[in-house]
């Protein structure tokens, strides 16, 4: 390699690093802020470097708000939602992919169509529906309208389609039925995609704001994303506390992401159909 190429390479890498630093700055700054005292935060001579390690804002955010309750709500609703979405999507995709029954094409058409229906445009009637079912301000009310995740079915179908048909025939010859096929072969065969879809669904559920924001009316039922905006102290100077709240709200998924980084990125790629 020639020296100019080497220098060019080094420059490009440097540029990338600078870009990444800029990209990371907001989170860095939130971190720095949350570790300062409130008066330090607004004082004119506070610099860009972390200069304090003050956990009071964080403990304040954690214990003087209902943060822990919101965590519980977020974890609960997201987990339940993920399990239902994955299991029902998998079953439906399996039937569409592997079985021949009347209405199969219509059903797949509906799935594809629902991919295009913006749930956000339905919030008014969904809210009324939840009211009529008495589910406002309940976990069920949070979960139910978010259960339609057609991409799960579409991706599962693609993967089931690509399982060689011999696999199915081998099981049929071995004496297995459809449920045995699905749960003993197709599911374990597609663990990778199952965890991928579960991760993506979970992140989506954890981060969803609009619907929970509408359907939850009390602090006790709020999820993290709703809670940290709805219950902010409008009166008073609490920047450090706000940033602590923000960081705490981001923490679980962010930590999970950093731990399972490769899985998460793969999951996103797979579920968007770019990588099979």
């Amino acid at each position, binding site marked *: 390699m020639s020296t100019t190429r080497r220098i060019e390479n080094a420059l490009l890498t440097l540029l990338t690093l600078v870009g990444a630093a800029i990209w990371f700055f907001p989170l860095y700054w939130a971190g720095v802020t949350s570790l300062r005292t409130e008066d330090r935060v607004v004082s004119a001579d506070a610099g860009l470097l972390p200069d304090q390690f003050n956990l009071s804002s964080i403990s304040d955010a954690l214990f003087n708000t209902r943060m822990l309750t919101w965590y519980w709500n977020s974890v609960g609703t997201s987990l339940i939602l993920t399990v239902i979405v994955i299991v029902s999507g998998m079953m439906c995709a399996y039937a569409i992919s592997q079985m021949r029954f009347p209405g199969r094409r219509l059903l797949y058409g509906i799935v594809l169509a629902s991919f295009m229906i913006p749930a956000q445009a339905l919030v008014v009637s969904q809210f009324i529906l939840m009211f009529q079912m008495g589910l406002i301000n309940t976990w069920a009310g949070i979960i139910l309208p978010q259960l339609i995740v057609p991409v799960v079915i579409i991706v599962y179908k693609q993967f089931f389609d690509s399982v060689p048909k011999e*696999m199915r*025939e081998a099981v049929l010859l*071995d004496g297995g039925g459809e449920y*045995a096929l699905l749960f003993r072969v197709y599911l374990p065969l597609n663990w990778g995609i199952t965890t991928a879809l579960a991760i993506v669904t979970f992140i989506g559920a954890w981060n969803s704001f609009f619907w929970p924001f509408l359907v939850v009316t009390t602090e006790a039922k709020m999820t993290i994303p709703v809670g940290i905006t709805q219950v902010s102290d409008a009166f008073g100077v609490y920047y450090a506390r706000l940033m602590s709240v923000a960081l705490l709200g981001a923490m679980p998924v962010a930590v999970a992401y950093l731990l399972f980084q490769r899985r998460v990125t793969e999951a996103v790629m797979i579920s968007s159909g770019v990588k099979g």
Partner: protein
Amino acid sequence: MGVSLKNVKKSFGAVDVIHDVSIEIPKGDFAVFVGPSGCGKSTLLRMIAGLEETSGGRIEIDGKDVTDEEPADRGVAMVFQNYALYPHLTVYDNMAFSLRLAKAKKEEIREKVAEAARILQLTEHLAKRPAKLSGGQRQRVAIGRAIVRQPSVFLFDEPLSNLDAELRVQMRLELARLHRQIGATMIYVTHDQVEAMTLADDIFVLKDGWVQQAGSPLKLYDDPDNRFVGGFIGSPAMNFFAGEVSGGGGGRMEVRTEVGGKVFTAARRGEVSSGQKVTLGIRPEHLKLSEEGLRAKVDMVEQLGGVSYLHVKLEDGSNVVVERHGLREALEGQTVGLAADPDDILVFDQEGRRLR
């Protein structure tokens, strides 16, 4: 008893894929279906397995009509081209799968799997996942999965075509040995005619959904019923020369080739009239180089060491292959003459039927 198909038919929509096939395969026989791609071999096999419904006719296995039975109830086991192993299960669990579904006892499962593993020399791999196995080992696991069910009929759909050449030869031998060992009826689909020749007790040559000829490998090789079978069986393929009957008598007939106008003398049993258009079939190993023979130019020589194939070109540019052994001279570009013994020349009529 074995397997018997009676007037079996299959159509996909408007397309007839299998036209009226009747076949008897005796118990314990190693039957091979060969034929060009798309001729319906797999379809026929899958109908026997119950994976495709029949459009007509009856299928009997060991004397029992199974035409409407579920695959699992027919007493057949199948080995697929791509193995279709359960990748998430160990070798042991792959083999035990069907027994577990049938709710067999733990003890029984263990015994049967151990026995199959012993036969197939898989004992030390039982705890591995298929992904950790070589191609040949995977193929053996697929066979093992069939063996544990103790089926009366084994079905193989091109089981070796995913293996590389060397392994294919080796597995071919193992399959032959296995058949000798367990003695079950086996039906084997392939389009590799070396496999067909070496494995079969009986070969069924299919074309476009019809059985062209059935019989032992050497019978098909030496005595094909028609031009298609003659050309299909044997590698390199039989050479064909178009010609016209120019005379004969005394169990002989003379045929003048269209290209080159040389007269070949062939053994004859049936009647042929002079002037009739026929095709001569001569295998590469039966073509001899002789001064007086049909003139042809050596285009290329493929030297494989022991055997050499001469690709020679006739006047009209058509290609003829001649097999030679121990050839060491450079013949490329030379003009040679082609000849053959009368008994080595097969004659086919214009429809491709063999004239005997």
